[in-house]
């Protein structure tokens, strides 16, 4: 898994609440059996004026000039600024895969949907919850100042604005540790194999119908 330690990134403001994972990566791209290559189709229906299908060459597509990802000033952005309930709906991990493939490494919002939030950590993306007032302030600053960047430090759990304002955020200790070190979840869990086996042995006696 990718590590996340510190990031100094250009901010892209996506000023919509309840952005669902169908919008982040539409269903036709879920037919892929690969984990990579979803970036060109991130926000496909908002980002392009033509209808996207798998296998199309992004260079031949018609970008929607009114969509924020297509504004030249936000090219190369790696911090996505979003509103409440970001990532709601489908559990598709293709959503964080698409964000990561595009180059987004951190997302700041007042709240995230549970499954999406969890999926981010599996893919080296840091979802940061800040209160709605702070997020509103960041939106205003970002839209006013071209080239607006934020400095994110996972170990210190801080977001620092160009003006020097330092905003703290909460993150679960276990998730933080895994993200900072890029640890393989499955490898860690397999260290618990004896405990899993002991549970299974006990459960086979209590609830034998669960084991066919």
């Amino acid at each position, binding site marked *: 898994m990718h590590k996340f330690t510190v990031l100094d990134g250009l901010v892209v403001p996506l*000023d*919509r*609440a*309840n952005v*669902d994972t*169908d*919008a982040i990566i*539409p*269903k*036709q791209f*879920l*037919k*892929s*059996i*690969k*984990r990579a290559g979803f970036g060109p189709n991130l926000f496909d*229906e908002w980002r392009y004026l033509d*209808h996207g299908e*798998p*296998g199309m060459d992004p260079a031949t597509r018609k970008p929607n000039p009114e969509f924020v990802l297509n504004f030249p000033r936000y090219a190369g952005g790696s911090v996505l600024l979003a*509103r*409440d*309930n970001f990532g*709601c*709906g*489908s*559990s*598709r*991990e293709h959503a*964080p895969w698409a964000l990561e493939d595009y180059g987004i490494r951190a997302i700041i919002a007042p*709240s*995230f*949907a*549970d*499954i999406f939030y*969890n*999926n981010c950590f*599996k*893919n080296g993306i840091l979802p940061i919850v800040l209160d709605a007032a702070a997020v509103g302030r960041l939106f205003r600053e970002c839209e006013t100042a071209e080239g607006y960047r934020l400095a994110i430090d996972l170990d210190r759990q801080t977001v620092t604005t160009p003006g020097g304002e330092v905003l703290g955020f909460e993150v*679960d*200790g*276990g998730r933080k540790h895994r993200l900072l070190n890029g640890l393989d*979840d*499955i490898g860690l*869990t*397999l260290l*618990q194999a004896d*405990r*899993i086996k002991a*549970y*299974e042995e006990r*459960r086979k006696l209590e*609830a*034998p*119908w*669960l*084991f*066919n």
Partner: protein
Amino acid sequence: MPGQTLFQKLWDAHVVHVEADGTTLLYIDRHLVHEVTSPQAFEGLKLAHRIPRRVDAAIAVPDHNVPTTDRSQGIADPISRLQVETLDANCAEFGITEFGMDDIRQGIVHVIGPEEGLTLPGMTVVCGDSHTSTHGAFGALAFGIGTSEVEHVLATQCLWQKPSKTMLVKVDGTLGKGVTAKDIALAVIGEIGTAGGTGYALEFGGSAIRALSMEGRMTLCNMAIEAGARAGMVAVDQTTIDYVKGRPYSPKGDAWDKAVAWWNTLHSDADAAFDRVVELDAAQIAPQVTWGTSPEMVTTVGGRVPDPADAPSEVKRHDWTRALEYMGLAAGTPIAEIPVDKVFIGSCTNSRIEDLREAAGVAKGRRVASNVRLAMVVPGSGLVKQQAEAEGLDRIFVEAGFEWREPGCSMCLAMNADRLEPGERCASTSNRNFEGRQGQGGRTHLVSPAMAAAAACAGHFVDVRKL
């Protein structure tokens, strides 16, 4: 000691190990697998030279990509075909039972689990699909996971979790005629919002829930995720046990008796404390119709499209304006005056036999209106289809002008050939009215099966209670 919630009982029964910070290694009893969210998980296993820990706990079925028309020639779209073939190959390689596309038991993963007795009370059930919350109807802890966690469950049979907060959604009283579990679900989402359940496991209780059939409870728990909750659940009662008895994978003999004894304890204790309680009066719930692009944008069939000027906040005003623009609707339009172009009856929310009976009850003796280009009925599984045909429901639908299809997810998310064209408006019994969900530019209104059938025959939304 205060009483325990159903969630706590289910949680405690599955704890393998707890870390110092409360992060818990939770054991998973049942893993449902489909073709869309599993290929990368199997690939990950292979790359790491790992094998599934318990193939008997997993069951696989292709549902999202399968055609709902004639299947004798296989899947026309080569990318969809490859994804289904990849599932077939992975299941064959690792020895996981799969109900393939031509198996009578094939269907939507959240329909076949309960139908086969693969979903049982007291289980932890996961699937790489957010609508896994459906299985909570059985007094199970069931939730959707991403592909990394699909791989994790395959390899370890466990997941790292932290306990959710608990919310009791208490619905007392009697539902009016023509009002269904789908209407309860939409009314709850309208009440608490699409993020109202974030961080919570929802338990649905109260006399109106006790009175629901298992299929109604599944519809309700299915939509818990649309309120933001990963898991929804209903306590075990005799209705649950009667449904489970005699299913192919449900326990038999002594194991059955032992199971029932435990299952009968799977309810929240009378003095259990919830983090939040929401109460609704069943008698006050009218048939629901969504008007926007989030399930919380919902009103009653007698209502009107709201005016963004009346939105409770600036952010919502912005969302409502954008939603009305996308939906091609003017503020103040009566819901009953909105015409529909297509009607979809199906999905893991509403494709079971009772849903089809309810829709057929409305369609019987009526005709699909001339302005409706397509009205389709997609049963949830091969067995649901067979049952419906044995009851003659297919003939009622066909005579009324509906198309009678093969089972699968179909136009709920339009990964197969069934979809809306840009600008088309659909009365749908599915679960999400997101932009583009049923096809790019498509406009979805979520309703119950009876309301969808009624809209098909009237050509616009109509109060099913007044037919």
